C-alpha cells in the first residue's frame, strides 16, 4: 500500500505571546513544530505500515526550512519525503494550497491520502477536503481510528459532536485525522541518525500537474482585507489577598451579578 501523508510546519501557537503594550504577536523564539493533527495522521500511516506493510511518503509545502518536519517524519519511520517549495506558492489560501498539494499527488501513486484535520496556525480544516475533491477521492474527516480490511477497503471511526460514526470506505480515499485519535510515536534514535543522510526531494511548481494560475496568490479566491488584534475589554480588578478574603470577594461579586 502506498500512503501519502501531508504535513505542515507550524509555529507552536501555545508558545505565542502577546505584547501587552503594543498588542502585537511576539513570534520571536516561538518554536516551529509538526502540526499536531498531521503528526497523528502520520502515526496512522505508520501503524498501517507496521500492521499490513506500506510505503509512507510525507509531503509538505513551505519554505526551505520546512525540511525539518520532513526529517522528523523520516525519523519517525516515513520512507520518502517531498518538499514543495517555490515562490509561485506564496500567498496561497486554502484552495490554492489544496491545488498545489493535489497537483503533486497527481504525479504520485497512492492508495490512501492522509492529512491532519486542521493546522493550529489557521484552524480552517479545509485543505484536506479540498484536495479530496480535486483528486476525486472519497473523504472522511475527523478520523480517530482506522482498520484496513484488505482489497483497498477501510473501516474508519469518525468523531462527531455527540459520539462517533463507523464508516466503510472504498479506497483510494482521503482521511483527515485527529491528534487525539493517534498518539504519535517518538522519533527513533537510529532513524534520527539517518534522517539527514536521506534525500528530501525538492519539487518546484513546474513539477506539479496543475496550472500555474491555480497556485499562490493568483489561485486564491479569498484575500485578506485587513488584519488587526482584537480589542480586549478593559481589565477588571485584581485582588492580592489572603485566601479567606479572596473567597469573600468572589462571593460578593457573584451576588452583585445575581449569579448566586
Amino acid at each position, binding site marked *: 500500500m502506498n500512503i501519502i501523508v501531508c504535513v505542515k510546519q507550524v509555529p507552536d501557537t501555545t508558545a505565542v505571546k502577546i505584547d501587552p503594550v503594543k498588542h502585537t504577536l511576539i513570534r520571536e523564539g516561538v518554536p516551529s513544530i509538526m502540526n499536531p493533527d498531521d503528526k497523528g495522521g502520520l502515526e496512522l500511516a505508520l501503524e498501517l505500515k507496521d500492521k499490513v506493510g506500506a510505503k509512507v511518503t510525507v509531503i509538505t509545502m513551505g519554505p526551505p526550512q520546512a525540511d525539518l518536519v520532513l526529517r522528523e517524519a523520516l525519523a519517525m519511520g516515513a520512507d520518502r519525503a517531498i518538499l514543495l517549495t517555490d515562490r509561485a506558492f506564496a500567498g496561497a489560501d486554502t484552495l490554492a494550497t489544496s491545488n498545489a498539494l493535489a497537483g503533486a499527488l497527481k504525479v504520485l501513486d497512492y492508495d490512501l491520502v492522509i492529512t491532519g484535520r486542521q493546522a493550529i496556525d489557521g484552524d480552517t480544516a479545509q485543505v484536506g477536503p479540498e484536495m479530496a475533491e480535486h483528486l476525486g477521492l472519497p473523504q472522511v474527516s475527523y478520523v480517530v481510528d482506522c482498520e484496513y480490511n484488505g482489497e483497498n477497503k477501510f473501516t474508519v471511526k469518525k468523531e462527531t459532536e455527540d459520539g*462517533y*460514526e463507523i464508516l466503510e470506505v472504498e479506497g483510494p480515499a482521503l482521511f483527515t485525522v485527529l491528534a487525539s485519535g493517534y498518539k504519535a510515536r517518538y522519533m527513533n534514535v537510529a532513524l534520527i541518525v539517518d534522517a539527514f543522510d536521506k534525500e528530501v526531494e525538492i519539487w518546484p511548481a513546474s513539477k506539479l500537474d496543475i496550472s500555474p494560475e491555480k497556485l499562490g496568490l493568483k489561485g486564491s479566491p479569498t484575500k485578506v*482585507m485587513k488584519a488587526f488584534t482584537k480589542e480586549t475589554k478593559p481589565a477588571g480588578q*485584581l485582588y492580592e*489577598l489572603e485566601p479567606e478574603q479572596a473567597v469573600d470577594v468572589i462571593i460578593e461579586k457573584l451576588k452583585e451579578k445575581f449569579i448566586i
Partner: protein
Amino acid sequence: MNKADYKGVYVFVEQRDGQIQSVALELLGKARVLADKLGENVVAFYPGYKNAESAKELIAWGADKVVLIDAPELKDYITEQYSQAMSQAIDHYKPSIVLLGATTIGRDLGPRLASRLETGLTADCTGLDISEDRDLMMTRPAFGGNLMATILCSEHRPQMSTVRPGVMQKGTRDASRVGEIENFTPSFDPSKFKVKLVKAVKEEKGKIDITEAKILVSGGRGVANSEGFAKLQALADVVGGVVSSSRAMVDAGVMPHEVQVGQTGKTVRPDLYMACGISGAIQHLAGMEESDFIVAINKDKFAPIFGVADVGIVGDVHKIVPMLTEKLSKLMAAKK
C-alpha cells in the same frame, strides 16, 4: 462569471435525525441581517429525508424561501451525497452568499463544495458584514486566536463561510411569517458513493455540552491533575455548573477533548466562567472571553487571563477553590 447573476443569502440547514440544529437558526438570524443590508432574500437550503414537515419552521426563524431537498440519499450525512445535492442546488440557484455551521458536518461539506465550485471559503467566522462594494466581509481569528483577519472573496461566487455554533444570535421566532417552500430534486451519481455509514453512535457517558452550560468551572495547568479537577467538580456541583478545561490539561490526558475551551476546543459564553489555574494563552482566551462574567484565580499576577477577567484573584486554586466551595455550599443551604 457574472457577479450580478448571484443573489441571495443562503443558509445550509443542518439536521441530524430530522432535528434542525440550533446553529442553522443562528445562521438564519445573521443571514436576515445581511440580506436586509443587501436588499435580497434569505433562503434556506434544507437537505434531508422526509423533512418537509419542519421546513416552515425555517420561515418562522427568518427565511424568505426554503429550498427543500428531500431524498433518501440524504437521510444521513455523507460527504459525497450531500456534495452532489448541494453543488447542484448552488449551481441552480446561484446564491451570492452561502453560510454553513462550523460543525463536523459543515466543516466537512464546506471545503468539499468550495473546491467543487472553485470558490473561496472562510472558516469559523466570528463576524460577517457587507462592504460598500456589496461583498461579504468575513472576520475570523487567526494565529491561535488573537490576530483577527477580515477576508473578502470578491471575484468568486458564492462567497462561502462557516460559523461556529454559539457565535451568532438567533432572530426571534415568528410563526406568522410567510414564505415559499420549493422542492429541488438533485440527480445523484451513485457510482461515486464510496463511503457507507455502518452506524452512528451517540455517546452518553455523562457527556455534557460545555457550550450549553450557564456556569463553567474551568481548570488549567495550575490544577495539575485529576485530584485538582475533583476540587473544581465539587465547586461546580455546588453552583450548578459544569467543569471544563484548558488545552494544556487535555494534552496532558487529564481531561477529555470534549470539555476543552479555546481555539481548538469549544467556544463558550456562559453567564459565569471561573478560570482556575489557567494562565490564559491566547487560544484559550479566544474560546471564552465572550463570557458574561469572568472570575480568574491564578498564582501568577501577570497571567494574561487577568486581562480579560472581571475579577482577578492572585492565589492558589488548591486553597481557594475548596474554601469557596465550602462557603458557597453553606450559603446555598441557608437559602433553602
